């Protein structure tokens, strides 16, 4: 069953927590991965790969650069999840 918006944000929060050590409560829709959450370009790749597995979605390299905020990623996953 496809994940809801709330489930995706919660899932991304867990992933960002594991990879960058950011508290899960800080991971909100309007937060920028790079500027607010200390997720650099390489950690972002790890976040993307973990999200792909968790939400059964493919996020090609060309699309990764468009995912600036948690909201961008959430919307992308909502739209593309299998």
């Amino acid at each position, binding site marked *: 069953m496809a994940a809801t918006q709330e489930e995706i944000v919660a899932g991304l929060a867990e992933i960002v927590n594991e990879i960058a050590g950011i508290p899960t409560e800080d991971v909100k829709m309007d937060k920028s991965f790079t500027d607010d959450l200390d997720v650099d*370009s390489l950690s972002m790749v790890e976040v993307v790969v973990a999200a792909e597995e968790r939400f059964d979605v493919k996020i090609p390299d060309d699309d990764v650069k468009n995912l600036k905020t948690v909201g961008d990623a959430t919307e992308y996953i909502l739209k593309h999840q299998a």
Partner: protein
Amino acid sequence: MTAKIKPSKGAPYARILGVGGYRPTRVVPNEEILKHIDSSDEWIRTRSGIATRHWAGPDETVASMSVEAGGKAIADAGIAPDQIGAVIVSTVSHFKQTPAIATRIAHEVGAGKPAAFDISAGCAGFGYGLTLAKGMVVEGSAEYVLVIGVERLSDLTDREDRATAFLFGDGAGAVVVGPSKVPAIGPTVWGSEGDKSETITQTLPWDVYRDQTAAEVRYPAITQEGQAVFRWAVYEMAKVAQQALDEAGVNPEDLDVFIPHQANMRIIDSMIKTLKLPEHVTVARDVETTGNTSAASIPLAMERLLATGQAKSGDTALVIGFGAGLVYAATVVTLP
């Protein structure tokens, strides 16, 4: 008539008998890199794990560094230079298209008149050369093969590109491959992904200067798509490394050493995590003080691990190279 042809006679198996390295004398710290880019020591270290690298001086040429490293590998193997039957040199930074630099290196290490040729397989060049050498020893076309990975990547570095200016280093690493009574180089898992040929590439071909002057076009350098390379290296190459272990019949628990191509500490760290390597495995982290030396990085790291006692002769090591092409090669070896 079809005449009966006598087959060549090789060794039952092959092994790495000796290793040698050459690092240029000049050590370049991040502070020097920062003169040309808007960045910081902390940024470079967190993105790459690189603190210093060696850059070659005018007298430290592709040939001279190779002769130094090759001579050490031959001495380490305990053979005479003239026993070398073939010399394979992997490089992307020898700027004379022809002749191959391998012939001069063969001559200068005192190998006499062996078969000698260059290969171009980027950061997988060591694994490609090792695989060819193993085949030659087992098939019988050479008893001992000198495999050299050598680069002067400082010549192909855009000092003003903040994404790559700090990455590359210079140096040469060499091994001698020879006969063995027992298997000591496992099956190679190798391949290419030509659909990703632009992911890591030289910005311009040399013949750009046929029609334009140096004042009109920026000197060629190596460029890469960082995120795409990182994803491929960490996740796809972890699968290749696992496959090399499987094909060699070696359990991760029985592995002593992991020597991945020294591209970037972040790739190495993430690769270990993805591979779930046991804690006891010694991991090569030569990139911190050597930078990315492409084809030279694995033999240089191997030489340092052995020289510092972090690894010892007879240890079982997983080696994997990956880079421009994209190409890759992984195998399990017994350390010399």
